[in-house]
């Protein structure tokens, strides 16, 4: 190959180098995030606009899919070419990066702005190492909603969703008899995990939930309340339809939107699907944390800031941290995203009825638990998901057998 043949390659390389802003005068931040769907990218744009308004230069690195983003971010951070900031789920997923010394703290900004006083304790603990805040929490999600179609409930003679499980099953029978799919399900073991944790916390309560998933207490698994929860989970299996196996979670939400199914158990990101269909919470569809105990299972997103050599870009990280956590950014972002602000000192009256209700529940620490991502690694959670999905899809498996299998897995993972 002579130089002339090679010149397009060189040109391409030069163009690539030019396309990456390296100007030393700008406060440039290269941000990796997974928000690519309509509602999500509108939410990401809020961050970009606020950062630009504050004098920064936002370089967007969106990668579709949480898992794909995780793999890409890990590769870049470990490989020595880190972005300025990358999205992670709150909890254990970024713990090993902290241990390897690859992330910087944002403690100077956090202390100056008094973050510790306004972040709920579970979230504060999840981002704090050695008394230093290591990531910017940006939102708070409730994972255990039941989203229901008001039309299907009314036409089946149910009205509003009942507050205990016996009545709830009676209502589900009525919905089935009226010719609807009672429970919309889709998304495989990922979604079945939400059903499992919702039933566990609502039947057995927050204390036993934590003893099972956090302390991995074998005795707690034998508790009558926990056994009852597993029986409720088993009974719930018959209310999903046979199409659930190959359906995606948002297609399941669509069954509720189009009044083909009664309800779906899903996190508050489902609101984005309802919004895209032009529906309003409280009007065409409803949200409830019942039946059983009304508890919020919380999850969230954070941005981690890898250590960078360039002082200018490190300064840009501080500006980014400040902008992401500012009250007006928090409100604007979370309205688009469907989640709640992580700061508990902002006014949520401009948000929808479900978000306001979540904020109400979240004022009471006794009515909230962290989701399993705070309590176990991706590996451990994956193994637990395998057991849950086996139980859910094996009608012959008894609650006792599920309890034994779950106990074995919880004891073997970390």
């Amino acid at each position, binding site marked *: 190959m002579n130089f002339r043949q090679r010149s397009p390659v060189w040109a391409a390389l030069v163009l690539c180098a030019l396309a990456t802003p390296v100007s030393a005068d700008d406060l440039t931040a290269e941000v990796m995030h997974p928000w690519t769907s309509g509602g999500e990218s509108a939410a990401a744009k809020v961050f970009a606009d606020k950062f630009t308004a504050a004098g920064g230069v936002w370089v967007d690195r969106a990668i579709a899919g949480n898992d794909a983003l995780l793999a890409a971010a890990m590769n870049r951070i*470990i490989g020595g070419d880190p972005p300025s900031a990358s999205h992670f789920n709150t909890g254990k997923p970024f713990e090993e990066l902290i241990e390897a010394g690859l992330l910087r703290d944002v403690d100077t900004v956090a202390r100056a702005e008094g973050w510790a006083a306004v972040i709920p304790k579970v979230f504060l603990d999840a981002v704090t190492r050695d008394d230093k805040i290591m990531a910017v929490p940006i939102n708070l999600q409730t994972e255990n909603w039941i989203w229901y179609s008001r039309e299907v409930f009314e036409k089946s003679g149910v009205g509003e969703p009942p507050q205990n499980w016996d009545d709830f099953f009676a209502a589900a029978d009525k919905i089935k008899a009226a010719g609807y799919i009672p429970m919309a399900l889709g998304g*495989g073991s990922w979604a079945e995990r939400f059903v499992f944790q919702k039933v566990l916390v609502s039947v057995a309560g927050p204390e036993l939930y934590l003893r099972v998933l956090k302390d991995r207490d074998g005795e707690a698994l034998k508790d009558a309340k926990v056994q009852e929860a597993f029986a409720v989970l088993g009974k719930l299996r018959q209310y999903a339809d046979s199409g659930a196996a*190959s359906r995606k979670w948002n297609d399941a939400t669509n069954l509720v939107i189009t009044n083909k199914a009664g309800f779906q158990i899903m996190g508050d990101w489902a609101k984005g699907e309802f919004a895209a269909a032009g529906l309003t919470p409280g009007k065409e569809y409803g949200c409830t944390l019942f039946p059983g105990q009304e508890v919020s299972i919380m999850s969230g997103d954070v941005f981690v800031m890898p250590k960078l050599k360039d002082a200018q870009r490190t300064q840009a990280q501080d500006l980014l941290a400040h902008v992401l956590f500012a009250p007006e950014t928090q409100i604007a972002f979370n309205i688009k995203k469907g989640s709640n602000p992580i700061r508990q000192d902002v006014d949520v009256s401009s948000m929808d009825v479900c978000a306001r209700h979540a904020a109400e529940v979240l004022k009471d620490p006794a009515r909230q638990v962290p989701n399993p991502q705070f309590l176990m690694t991706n590996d451990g959670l994956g*193994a637990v998901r395998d057991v849950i999905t086996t139980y859910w899809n094996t009608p012959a498996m008894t609650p006792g057998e599920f309890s034994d299998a779950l106990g074995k897995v919880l004891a073997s993972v970390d």
Partner: protein
Amino acid sequence: MQSKRISRHLPSFVAMLPTTLFVVIIYLGCMAWTVAISFTTSKVLPVARWAGATQYERLLATERWTVSVHNILIYGACYILGCLLLGFLTAVAIDQKVRFENTLRTIYLFPYALSFIVTGAVWQWIFDPQLGIEAALRGLGLESHIGILSSPGTAIAALVIAAVWQGAGLVMVMLLAGLRSVDGEILKAARVDGIPIWRAYVSIILPELRPMIVTSVVLLAIAVVKAYDLIVSMTQGGPGIGTEMPAKFVMDHLFERGNIGLATAAATLMLLAVLAVLVPWLHLEYFRKAKGGAR
């Protein structure tokens, strides 16, 4: 004599050197690295902390792994036999000097040009109770609640059907090439001798096709070991863990679950299983060659 041979072969040695180095360093090096990592406590990042056989103990105690191994045996056997049978029958049919042979050959081979992701998505729609065959049956007024993809046994069968649909065309083309090289006089002679036509195919033609069949089996077996994309796009390993396969176990644990140690342990067992099949076969081939006999 000896030095003459070396000087004659030297240029080809030099030419092969980059490839050889590439194979040794990239392939064998990565294999060795994978095996080594499987004996460490590596989670998200590779670390050099010795773990002994604990990853293997956990792996063998994991139900999902045992289900995966069980599944790939069933899937592999049905897929290879299905492709060979269907491929052979279509090859024989086309070999009867039918009209539009080129068109038919293209149609049969066409699925092979699709990626497994596309094949999986299409067949998922076909088997979907609300979209596909079952919906059509209900549209005709027939009761149908099979739910092909919602029970593990039938879901595996659905995977095999999709995979055979894709793979049979390749076998057909290879066997057809083989059939064309068989002397047509053989069949005529068999007819004169009053030998039934099926007997002539089984006892005379099939042995002639042996090299083509061996090549087909090797290609199909490679596809079985790699089985990942078809499962991801068609069943996601579900319902439950009913259609999980070893390659998906490795990929999930490498990336999504961040447990490199367990993933490499599973990959090492896959390597051992392949070697357990490959080594005796290679030995047999070379042993027979050394004896200077059969083809």
